[in-house]
């Protein structure tokens, strides 16, 4: 089938078709500069302040799903077949304020007002899922939005009060849902999309097989999934990423499958989409998951991307390595399976071949004692100073197996082999864990940087063994 030479999407209530789009073009610049929709603000251009939050609706299994997105690091090409909603479009046809907007005014929730459109959009997204949120849900919904003025107290009051302004079913965006979904469906033609401006090309393959073909033809291409990392290469690093191959939209990489033995997650599944399945299968990851970025980052970022970029401080590898996760790498029609920890060869070097891509992640469903910890300067929406995952099996009063991995302690996410060895066979008792922690000195030589000193990293890493004991000592004893 011939490829399509333009991206198509809905922007507020209008349809947009663009052919001159560069790989590096961001949604935010398009909104602010090309369309003069200046309600959406730029506060950081790196996905950390939320001032640029817009809603992006896309067709997902059950219908149309809107999510909050950081327009500053979302590439324009990737909104093909999406509905982009900016703050200008939140009011009703009669010009009346949206319930979130009204509650924000009533509760004095804006001071300088610069964060406000982004906060309004984040709360509007929350309201769609959870019309009467409690304080914890509101805090989670606002993890991706900074406000420097208010101290958040009035914003919380406003968020609690939005329920007083009618049911979400009456919100203007909701009333147009069926119509919008139909318009988006009409845009789906199953074709590969390729757009360019000048020499900079962006490609959206038609499906996973097409992706394999595109990458075979362009092994030098930059693969972009959620853009929560690649976005910064462009906005901060001024890098040229063309040709860029976008994979976030590929339904065949967005599947989540669970059977008795495995949980399988496609490479383009976002943190948000994986959250429920992960928490159900591995309850210890529930809280950990909520500390990956904020809602915008979780709605954009993918597990595959977090692994594939090979960062030593990514949140996913230290959590999944202890579980025995494996990744499926594909090149052309060939596939190979690799234990996750073997993927990371050295800083910036992963075991992936030109033209290859990470297709899926599979995690064995296992019993035993589990924990995942993230230590950061700020609790939410921060990059970890240290992240750790533990998976121990205890029986008859002794540790039978141990898989322990750390992020932030070495140039790559890495298992703590010496500590594991020091633990296996030892009696299930606090001194065994404290003793094993000492072996971390042989496993790691962490560095000092702006996130933490080397000595803090090592101290806290060791202390996590004690935390593990405090949390699981009794459960391990019962297993005995």
């Amino acid at each position: 089938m011939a490829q399509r030479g333009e991206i198509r999407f809905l922007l507020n209530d209008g349809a947009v078709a663009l052919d001159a789009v560069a790989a590096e073009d961001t949604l935010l610049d398009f909104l602010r500069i090309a369309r003069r929709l200046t309600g959406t603000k730029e506060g950081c251009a790196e996905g950390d302040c939320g001032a640029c939050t817009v809603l992006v609706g896309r067709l997902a299994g059950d219908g149309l799903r809107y999510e909050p997105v950081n327009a500053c690091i979302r590439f324009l090409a990737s909104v093909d077949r999406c509905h982009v909603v900016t703050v200008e479009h939140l009011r009703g046809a009669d010009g009346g304020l949206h319930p979130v907007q009204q509650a924000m005014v009533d509760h004095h929730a804006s001071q300088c007002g610069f964060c406000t459109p982004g906060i309004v959009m984040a709360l509007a997204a929350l309201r769609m899922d959870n019309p009467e949120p409690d304080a914890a849900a509101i805090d989670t919904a606002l993890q991706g939005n900074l406000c420097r003025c208010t101290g958040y107290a009035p914003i919380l009051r406003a968020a609690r009060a939005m329920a007083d302004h009618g049911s979400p079913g009456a919100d203007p965006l909701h009333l147009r849902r069926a119509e919008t979904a139909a318009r988006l469906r009409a845009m789906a033609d199953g074709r590969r999309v390729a757009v360019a401006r000048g020499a900079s090309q962006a490609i959206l393959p038609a499906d996973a097989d097409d992706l394999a073909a595109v990458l075979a033809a362009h092994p030098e291409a930059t693969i972009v999934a959620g853009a929560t990392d690649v976005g910064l290469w462009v906005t901060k690093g001024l890098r040229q990423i063309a040709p860029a191959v976008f994979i976030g939209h590929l339904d065949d990489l967005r599947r989540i499958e669970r059977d008795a033995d495995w949980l399988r997650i496609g490479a383009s599944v976002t943190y948000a989409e994986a959250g429920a399945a992960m928490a159900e299968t591995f309850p210890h990851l529930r809280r950990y998951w909520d500390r990956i970025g904020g809602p915008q980052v979780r709605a954009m970022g993918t597990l595959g991307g977090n692994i594939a970029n090979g960062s030593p401080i990514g949140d996913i590898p230290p959590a999944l390595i202890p579980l025995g996760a494996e990744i499926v790498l594909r090149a052309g029609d060939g596939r190979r399976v690799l234990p996750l920890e073997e993927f990371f060869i050295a800083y910036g070097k992963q075991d992936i071949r030109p033209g290859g891509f990470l297709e899926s992640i599979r995690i064995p469903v296992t019993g035993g004692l589990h924990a995942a910890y993230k230590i950061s300067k700020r609790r939410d929406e921060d990059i970890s100073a240290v992240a750790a995952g533990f998976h121990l099996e205890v029986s008859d009063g002794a540790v039978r197996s141990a898989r322990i991995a750390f992020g932030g302690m070495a140039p790559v996410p890495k298992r703590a082999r010496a500590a594991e060895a020091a633990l296996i066979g030892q009696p299930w008792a606090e001194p065994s864990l404290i003793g094993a922690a000492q072996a971390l000195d042989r496993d790691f030589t962490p560095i000092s940087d702006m996130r933490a000193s080397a000595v803090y990293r090592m101290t806290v890493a060791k202390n996590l063994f004690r935390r593990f004991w405090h949390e699981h000592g009794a459960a391990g004893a019962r297993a005995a």
Partner: protein
Amino acid sequence: MRATVSIRGGAHTPEPHESAVGHVTGSAPYTDDIPEPVGTLHACLGLSEIAHGRIVSMDLDAVRAAPGVVAVLTAADIPGANDISPTGLGDDPVFPTDTVAYHGQPLFAVVAETRDQARRAAALARIACDPLPAILGVEAALDAGAPDVTPPLTLARGDAEAALQAAPHRLQGRMRIGGQDHMYLEGQIAFAIPGEDGTLTVHCSTQHPAEAQQMVAQVLGLPFNAVTVQVRRMGGGFGGKETQMNLFAAVAALAATRLDRPVKLRPDRDQDMIATGKRHDFVADYDVGFDAEGRIQAVDARLAARCGFSADLSGPVTDRALFHADNGYFYPHVRLASRPLKTNTVSNTAFRGFGGPQGAVVAERIVEEIAFALGEDPLTIRQRNFYGPGRDVTPYHQRVEDNILPRLVAELEASSDYRARRAAILDFNAQGGVARRGIALTPVKFGISFTATWYNQAGALVHIYKDGSVGLNHGGTEMGQGLFTKVAQVVASALQVDLARIRVTATATDKVPNTSATAASSGADLNGMAALDACRKLKARLVAFASDRWDVAADAVAFAPNEVRVGDAAIPFDAFVKEAYMARVALSATGFYKTPKIHWDRANGQGRPFYYFAYGAAVSEVEIDTLAGEYQVTRTDILHDVGRSLNPAIDLGQVEGGFVQGMGWLTTEELWWDADGRLRTHAPSTYKIPLASDRPRRFNVALADWSENREMTIRRSKAVGEPPIILAISVVEALSMAVASVADYRVCPRLDTPVTPERVLMAVEGLRAAGDG
């Protein structure tokens, strides 16, 4: 008889922010949202990549040749003075000519058709420098005998040395107090548009339009009247746009003038944080003598600050640190000295509190040390040391005449159930668990007025249009603090018209000239009074007109809600105004105000620098995890004094917001320079300001509604912008208590700030190691 009605939106009512609807709908424009005229160009700064060195060569050929580039500007292109020092010291070049003074110093600007092109081009510069040794931090500067950037100050009263020697107890300590980036959500931006006959207009996000105007004029060699600076609103300022905007305004104006095209300069967040000054970090050395009751007998302290490569506002900032190094406590004998140290770092600047919080945190540390030394509840020691009758002279010889701290603290102590909660926490900690708790109540006393006495003046302009609508303009700037709303409420009350009739227009140097910075919490005090003065003039003219026109005595004319009573008649305001217009009454007036009573003799360290004091207190409770150092503020109760509030909703917002901003300064906001002097925390990904989930889990904030300013301020209100920052010290001291619990409170943990989880854990480990040994 008429029913008693009142105007809508007068002073003392909780009106929403005048731009609230614009904020929530995204329709309130900021500088970057102003439509760009055809032909607008975009500038980007090129920054130094070393901390200190002599410039050998600047090869900018590749920059010039880059796509879209229209011009490259260096110091050689400056027609006027290459200096934007706000205090006229000549130490703050737009672009340096021979020496790079800090990493990230702007060296040139490139102007291109698009912002993206300008950013990409700037990266192509080849700057060669001969490196020189760089002094980065306060301790390094002290060790190296680095000079001061501006003359230091000493405040002294009594004989501190003798009293220290005579005191029954004495202790010394050092505290390191971190700086803070403003992290206003809207970054710096300037947009210069050339006008006719060599004039130009600069839209920029500035707290001090008159100074931006002066700097632009001086750099371009123009008279001030050729430059108009305008700002409708800022997306936050916090002191970061008091002087730091001058560079951007000057460069945009220089480019626009050279090229005769509109030029916008909006640095990205990294450049904004790297190239603009921050809250000063300090190292304080203190020596305190006290008696067995914990009553302070003498304090001798030196507060040394990292000022950066130039003076900027470091003189008044370090002065204000000394002015607040007593916080609410009487020091019978005292000597306080500042060291405004020169370093090879960005020039530090104003930040909400302006050195005051750094001084106050030292006072609280001193009191905390005494409490640990005597094994007492720190609140008890605090209360014993408050100013009081016969103990009411500050280290700068101003008497504290309006002290309400004892009452305010007693009320908060009771309403927060402080003593019982503290007892419960001691019990909880005694169980020896991994989690430990702490609680602390700390006060605030904050001096209100610019210490540069001439800054305490303001102008306003009020028009009554012939349809009865009112135009209001004044020299203050709106950065989110609600100043425009408050001043409009003052005008509404003065003219007795509904707030909806009044439109506040952008602050502009061609409307009200020679204004002061909107800073020092003074915005409403000064501009409210100036606007009131204009209203009084208008009302006097209108009264004279009415008494003449309807032949009644002047006292028979009264401004009633939305109407004017003339004798027995009531005339709707619009109709009345129309009549006045027809009778050729001047319906526009300027207003002016200068703060009375204040004077300051810096050389002798004596005077009355402050018109009055604002007070407050906070109780915070925390829980720490002694394995990772992570913590949560579980509850904060605040009672704060704003006098008779002009707008209780806005004031409450200032208190809540100021507290959380102060908490960020003292907890997670860590500025981290590497050994080469590069700031590595230069964006929100690495520099962590509080999030919603960091705010206290329970947050009870109240205004002391019984308070009224004893001075004749605008409607007896008090300033509110800065003091609440200091309330956050309660969090530091609560963390300190929780940490100290692991060694049974025998040792004061002496936490430096910011108290990151790392600092908490390392303090816990340190106390444990000392205890185990």
